[in-house]
């Protein structure tokens, strides 16, 4: 599979429409990625 020419916006919309019933919401608990020195 080629990494280029893959992201297709309409395909995203179609995909999201399939899973619109899945409950998900963003909130402030989503945290960013942190320093590799101190984690893991």
């Amino acid at each position, binding site marked *: 599979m080629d990494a280029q020419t893959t*992201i297709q916006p309409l395909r*995203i919309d179609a995909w999201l429409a399939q899973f619109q019933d899945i409950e*998900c919401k963003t909130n402030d608990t989503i945290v960013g990625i942190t320093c590799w*020195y*101190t984690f893991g």
Partner: protein
Amino acid sequence: MKASKTYSRKVYISTNSTCNLNCKYCFENEKVKFEFNIDEALNILLEQLSTQTIYGTQISLRGGEPFMVFHKIKHLCESLWSQDIKEYYHIHITTNGTLIHGDIQKWLSSNRDKITLKLSLDGDRKSSEINRPKSFDLIDFHFLLNTWPEMKVNTTITAETLPYLAENIKFINSLGFKHITPHFSIMTDWKNCNLGNTLYKQLQELHNFYLKNPDIEPCSFFLSDISCTLNDKSCHQACNSGEMKAYDMQTRKYYPCYMCFPSIGGEKIAEEFKKLDFTNLEELEEYPCKACTFLNLCITCYAENYITRGSLSRRDMSLCKYQKIVFAVLFNFEYNRILSLTNPSPNDVLKMMAIKKHYKEIENILKEELQITSQVEVNT
């Protein structure tokens, strides 16, 4: 107390400044050779462990190369284990692996449930020879993986080894290591390296490799949770700097993180660190990073920012181009991975929403940084 991947408290102890290797990217300023004092370290640890936490304490012993002072580490650990301590704790040691033979192996093997090692390994023999000469053949990979099948590996990328990134990650995988964290060498000037297209090619190779081999855990470049880019404001955890206790045995002082030790940035900077507020980084973020879509994905070392550029949030802009290329390939990887799922999780849906929100910026990154124009197909 149940062991947890995330500890409530992390205590760093500097064991020694000496190392048996001469890595080209080492940022330790080894002007003074020192080894820790066992009684002093024991007292520090007993003091820290005297209060109980919910998820326990991670004790990290770090050098130099800690196994240069194996006899002292052994003494310290056995003294600690002989104490009646209610707090759950576990000892972590990051090592180059080259000294782990004979008696050290025997001792580690018999204490594998109380100690975990993390290995620094930059790739195959060729790349190891470039970054850290005369190290590769001294590492007993068989012992390490037999003792800790889940051992984590840190892989430092330098300008000289970046062209072999995919080969190196796949090689480390082939040895049997499952958890690989590559990172660009810090305190390095990446500005004039002109390796954007090379990095993209390497990451594409890994992208394809991971899609074809879904049972292999991707390296950490491909594991970042892109849903955090849905948050418009900075939501970085402060890399735990504010919660961490790092005790420098050389100066006999606590610092927010071991990267603040005087042996790295000098004594004056180390003192300034103590006055800084690591707990509210959102207020500290600076432009242009503050306005960047990928801020919450962008791994940075705040201490290195301060040491090198005089501000906690002043990231290394010479690395910005490379970080963005990593994010572009990560978004592409997640898009392809998630599309193939029949039962996506709520987090996968969030990730796809993030891809929808940012695909134009991904396209721009590839146009601006790599002059690639065919990444995104807009169906009309």
